[in-house]
């Protein structure tokens, strides 16, 4: 589904990704782990063309998408949920979802609304509330809902558990698994919260110092002892 070959990315003179190669299977949840500064977010941003790739290629279903403009990536079905400010705070819930809908027709928008409200009923209830009035968990639901309006085939999540309580973290991961199961969407999740995330993952990658140091199923990763490196580098 997604294939990355020898990807290198720099911030100024600093080389962050030093030749990352990986392959992602369709309809799977993939975890990208690693210590701080290993380049996890940079890898997601490179896929979504938010940073300049200096070398290497990225293929999506066989098509070269390296350096492709955002609106074209979205039309291919690739979406990105960033960390930090994940919603348009001064827009209502429904307006946030409409931003995700892009150029869809009215009927298509209605269908997408039903789909999103089906997964997150609370968003229907709060559809006329401003996003800044939502709780942390609801904010994350709205961000995922907005991305689902884009009919994605691949979603890149950058630390979706950031700032959430343990109970909400479990809920978010449950949602990610649910999205994969119901809509066949492939997910790449950058995450620190390994215990919760390995339970829902199909596959994991450990990124250390700009290179993939290990990859395998969650069981492989746990039994290999490689997981310690995520904390120690």
């Amino acid at each position: 589904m997604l294939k990355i070959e020898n990807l290198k990315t720099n911030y100024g003179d600093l080389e962050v990704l030093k030749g990352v190669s990986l392959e992602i299977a369709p309809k799977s949840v993939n975890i990208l782990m690693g210590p701080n500064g290993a380049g996890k977010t940079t890898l997601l941003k490179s896929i979504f063309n938010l940073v300049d790739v200096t070398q290497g290629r990225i293929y999506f279903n066989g098509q070269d998408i390296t350096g492709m403009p955002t609106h074209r990536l979205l039309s291919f079905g690739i979406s990105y949920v960033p960390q930090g400010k994940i919603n348009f705070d001064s827009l209502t819930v429904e307006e946030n979802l409409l931003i995700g809908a892009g150029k869809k027709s009215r009927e298509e928008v209605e269908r997408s609304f039903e789909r999103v409200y089906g997964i997150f009923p609370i968003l229907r209830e709060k559809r006329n509330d401003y996003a800044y009035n939502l709780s942390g968990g609801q904010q994350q639901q709205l961000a995922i809902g907005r991305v689902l309006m884009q009919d994605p085939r691949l979603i890149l999540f950058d630390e979706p558990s950031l700032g959430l309580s343990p109970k909400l973290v479990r809920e978010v991961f449950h949602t990610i698994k649910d999205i994969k199961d119901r809509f066949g969407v492939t997910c790449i999740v950058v995450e620190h919260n390994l215990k919760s995330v390995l339970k829902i993952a199909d596959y994991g990658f450990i990124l250390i110092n700009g290179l993939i140091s290990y990859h395998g199923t969650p069981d492989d990763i746990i039994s290999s002892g490689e997981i310690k490196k995520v904390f120690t580098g």
Partner: protein
Amino acid sequence: MAILLQILFNGLIAGSIYALVAVGFSLIYSTGRFMHFAHGAVVALGAYLQYWFFNLIGINFYLSFILTLFSVSLIGYLMHRFVYKPLKDRGSSSAVLLIVSVGLMIVIENFILLIFGANVKSYSFLEIRKGIEIAGALITPLQIFIIAISVALFLLLYFFMKKSKLGRIIRAVSDNPELARISGINAHFVHSASFIIGSAMASLAGVLIALEQNLEPTMGLNLIVKGFTGAVIGGIMSIPGSIAGSFFLGIVENAGIWYLPSGYKDAIAFVILFLFLIFKPKGIFGVKKRDE
């Protein structure tokens, strides 16, 4: 009572003019995140283009206004496309863009001076009529017209921003430019749209002001200072806020010069500007955010 009402009338007239300048400035600031100080000169350009079409060429006043509206919107777009955008693409900071905007203002002012000269001009379109007396306070029909047009325009802008798709996209970009980009919104398109809409409002402001006052090449500087102050008072990121802030400024200024010599009018504006920048930099209606 009559005095209070008169202060209120004068304040509303000044406020509606400031607000017309402030909304365009605020719109451009909120989407592009830089101070387009040349916006005041664009107002002056609007006033002078109308003078050129109406007084010099002799086209019908209303047709002249339509021509002015289109020309000024186009000039606003060209400023964005050929001055600000290339600099932004090269990663220029907002400070650089601010200096550029002051440069543009000087260029436009001097261009007006070169073409039209330094003499004070007037459209002489409406004959000066006696004011209407309301409970002892005087207001001219033109002044009522200015207030009415401004209020109608603000309502129109409000509904455009609230209900239209483009309005929603403009609000999204002003709320979170990075997320807007990730969501597939074309920032260049939104910036162009805010320059076109903002400049169109500036041209209307220019013509209305010139109906009430005289035209001078440097009229834009004073207007942008007042418009900017109004925007800061209300909250520069919020369009309704900058409208309210401008009316507030107009009323306070006029109340102030009731007690102080009228030469202090601009000083009052500056004192209010400083007070807000020090104590309430986000303004009265500063946009609420979760993390603030």
